[in-house]
């Protein structure tokens, strides 16, 4: 069985989105031989879907902006649950990461004086998002892709081989992170990362990449939900790989529902409508034509947002003397408001609300500033956004929770050699992410992960040995769907597509935007049932490019991650950011310093945990590290009182 091809690399990066590519570039520039593995073709990662921009306090448009203001906005947006050191590093380093892209060929939109233009976005005090029309993510991924090609060209010059020191394994999937075991003779010691087990989607062939460092940068989990802006790749692979390797996940209950996804036609339900629509002047109205967001400004934001339409409209031209429109509240607030309007019967015909730019600016301006939105609606919904309002509603967009990492090094906790960056890493965004902070997060922590992964690999004295038993087990696990049988012999195996649809429906209905205790308990029972059935998921055909097989393998990951979300959401008895409990509707200051960690209940690898009460995941509470005093001093005392518990304030 263990006759699988093996290759040796220094750093393996799983995922080729913004974080993965930035990590790979850094690792390669540190001198590490680096392999990148991605499920899709090179350059197709979900990062291309990011539209609005990259948040970085460069101060090009408003020179009062600086990293402290960005830090403050990020902490406010995350309701102070952020891993503050990450938020600090992020706001400090983001400008450098953006400027560096320009030296690799990126072409951002410009200001009059030739610098990078920056636009307004929800939750950001000043215009801060470096952007390229509404296709910033594409620019980011293309720039990183082309930087990788340029490094490969260097290697071609120096070694005669493009892939001598940096190779992209496209359309390959990692199913297991391998670790050293006691007595394996590994000079590096046991319990460390030793490589990854992968299959090539095209041929179905298994292979092992041996490497002391693995950077997980696989993105999010949206495909566990029915209505989502995420692509098929977002099956929580990295989260699951880390869990299975013994690393904990952090605060998985926080899932961001982007307030504005398309709601019609059904086949595109969930596809994103960029926040720039609101940043550039678009307004939300209910079926009565009312700009309802004025009714939903929470107390903590009362003094930062306009109280009248007149003031809000003045803000676009004179932001210094007016407060911003409430359409630009953080995403969790807007998503909840839309949800409430629809629930109270003031929704649009297809169950959303109206997002209107047509009455706010001339058709020409709309087409110039929001070209891909114009096309998206024209071509997918047959709606001309320069003439009529869009219908939008919340869509599962981003998971704030993720692999628990060290702020400075991006190292996953408890598994030496494992690193995580981007959406798959937790902590940075607290309970809610601000728009624009994800692209900068990818770059800042992608680079840090690549840097430290390369340094760790270089610092080891010997290479970790791959355990043949783990390889055999991984191969057997991956092949199981081909020999699956029904509950009794002779019955057909489960259809992975059906299981996936049931899982999505369950998460959408029971652990969605508004959560209730009974429903989440019901969800856990349903997940237990699906787990049992997923073990019987079978596929037709052979191993060559077989999507049914791929989905059957991804189900394991989605089920693990979904359980984490449901369990953590059940545990956290408050509402904060991307976690809203109907039975605990307010934010509780006592929860501010509590992190919830998910671990595999049975780390020996037995996945047969069918007991819905026990499940596969165990939860652990952890008290967060107090925020450093100089960072706390950036806020007014009156503001801190709203978030921090008594004892935190007087330390």
């Amino acid at each position: 069985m263990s006759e699988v091809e093996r290759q040796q690399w220094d750093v393996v990066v799983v995922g080729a989105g913004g974080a993965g590519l930035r990590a790979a570039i850094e690792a390669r520039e540190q001198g590490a031989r680096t392999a990148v593995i991605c499920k899709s073709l090179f350059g197709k990662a979900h990062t291309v879907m990011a539209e609005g921009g990259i948040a970085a306090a460069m101060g090009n448009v408003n020179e009062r902006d600086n990293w402290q203001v960005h830090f403050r906005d990020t902490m406010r947006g995350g309701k102070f649950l952020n891993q503050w050191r990450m938020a600090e590093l992020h706001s400090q380093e983001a400008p450098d990461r953006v400027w560096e892209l320009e030296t690799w060929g990126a072409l951002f939109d410009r200001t009059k004086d030739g610098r990078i233009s920056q636009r307004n976005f929800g939750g950001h005090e000043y215009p801060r998002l470096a952007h390229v029309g509404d296709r910033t993510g594409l620019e980011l991924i293309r720039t990183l892709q082309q930087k990788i090609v340029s490094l490969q060209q260097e290697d071609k010059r120096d070694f005669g081989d493009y892939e001598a020191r940096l190779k992209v394994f496209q359309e390959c999937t990692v199913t297991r992170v391998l670790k050293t075991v006691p007595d394996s003779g590994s000079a590096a010691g046991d319990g460390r990362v030793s490589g990854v087990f992968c299959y090539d989607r095209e041929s179905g062939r298994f292979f092992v990449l041996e490497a002391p460092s693995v950077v997980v940068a696989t993105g999010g989990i949206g495909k566990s939900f029915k209505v989502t802006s995420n692509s098929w790749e977002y099956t929580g692979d990295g989260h699951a790989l880390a869990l299975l390797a013994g690393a904990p996940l952090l605060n998985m209950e926080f899932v961001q529902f982007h307030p504005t996804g398309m709601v019609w036609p059904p086949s595109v339900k969930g596809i994103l409508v960029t926040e720039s629509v609101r940043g550039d002047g678009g307004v939300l109205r209910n079926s009565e034509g009312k700009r309802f967001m004025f009714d939903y400004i929470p107390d903590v934001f009362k003094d930062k947002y306009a109280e009248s339409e007149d003031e809000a409209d003045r803000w676009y031209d004179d932001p210094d003397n007016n407060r911003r429109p409430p359409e630009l509240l953080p995403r969790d607030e807007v998503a909840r408001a839309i949800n409430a309007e629809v629930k109270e019967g003031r929704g649009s015909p297809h169950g959303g609300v109206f997002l209107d730019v047509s009455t706010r600016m001339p058709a020409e301006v709309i087409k110039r500033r929001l070209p891909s939105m114009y096309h998206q609606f024209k071509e997918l919904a047959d709606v001309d956004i320069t003439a009529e309002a869009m219908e939008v509603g919340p869509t599962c967009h981003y998971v704030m929770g993720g692999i628990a990492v060290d702020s400075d090094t991006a190292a996953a906790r408890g598994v030496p050699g494992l690193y995580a960056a981007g959406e798959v890493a937790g902590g940075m965004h607290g309970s809610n992410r601000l728009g624009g902070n994800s692209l900068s997060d990818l770059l800042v922590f992608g680079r840090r992960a690549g840097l430290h992964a390369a340094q760790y690999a270089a610092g080891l004295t010997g290479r970790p040995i791959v355990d043949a038993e783990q390889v055999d087990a991984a191969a057997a696990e991956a092949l199981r769907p081909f020999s699956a049988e029904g509950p009794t012999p002779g019955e057909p195996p489960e259809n992975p597509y059906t299981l996936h649809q049931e899982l999505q429906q369950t998460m959408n209905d029971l652990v969605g935007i508004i959560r209730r205790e009974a429903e989440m308990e019901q969800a856990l029972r349903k997940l237990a049932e699906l787990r049992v059935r997923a073990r019987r998921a079978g596929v037709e055909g052979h191993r060559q490019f077989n999507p049914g097989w791929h989905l059957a393998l991804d189900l394991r990951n989605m089920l693990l991650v979904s359980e984490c979300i449901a369990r953590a959401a059940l545990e956290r008895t408050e509402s904060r950011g991307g976690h809203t409990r109907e039975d605990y509707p307010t934010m509780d200051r006592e929860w501010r310093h509590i992190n919830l960690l998910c671990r595999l209940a049975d780390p020996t690898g037995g996945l047969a945990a069918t007991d819905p009460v026990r499940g596969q995941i165990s939860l652990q509470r952890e008290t967060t590290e107090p925020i450093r005093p100089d960072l706390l001093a950036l806020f007014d005392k009156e503001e801190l009182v709203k978030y921090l518990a008594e004892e935190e304030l007087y330390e």
Partner: protein
Amino acid sequence: MSSYEARFKVWRGDAEGGGLEDFKVEVNDGEVVLDIIHRLQATQAPDLAVRWNCKAGKCGSCSAEINGRPRLMCMTRMSVFSREETVTVTPLRAFPVVRDLVTDVGFNYEKAREIPSFVPPAGLGPGEYRMQQEDVDRSQEFRKCIECFLCQDTCHVVRDHEENKAAFAGPRSLMRVAELDMHPLDAAEQTGIDRKRTAQDEHGLGYCNITKCCTEVCPEGIKITDNALIPLKERAVDRKYDPLVWLGSKIGRRSP
């Protein structure tokens, strides 16, 4: 909401061979061809191989040929076909087939590697770049490219002549050359790379006979021929066929 049963022909097979298979499948209001392919996967052909990602025309993964025309499956609404029409879906026909609707698009990645990357200007550090919007407009248009490779697929130079693949980089790659040559801060020339000349000498610009199919199929609406390929041809003329420029460069070493 209305739904009906549509007739589909989908090419199934691999490098060894294959053919068009008939399907009858439900179609609902507002659906696109990719939705129908997914329905086939979920209900009739679980191992039907297809590439896709964003389903919003932004990633360029789901390229195929629908009724013989290269298109993105996610951006082809079923409403453009009549209910009686049989919709034929095949893989891209300019590239080697892998399985069903999936082709080996490696050609495009190989060509991309052969184009020298952006050369940062000496003496300008990160954060010091200053460019005017009008100077980046042209290259920005080309950077809208989502690399769906439909232009590479439809281009008859390689579609109908496999042997030209060695010499001809294809519209997408030539547009990349144009993008870099028009980049206001690209310093390739200072390092001895002449993008205008290499476009013709190394990337096969001369094979292009500007018949504009690349522009016709571009889902991003990029004017590949008018804004990238023809300007690049004119730039090559500057270098290679313009006696005045040639004379000037011999006498004064001036650069235009």
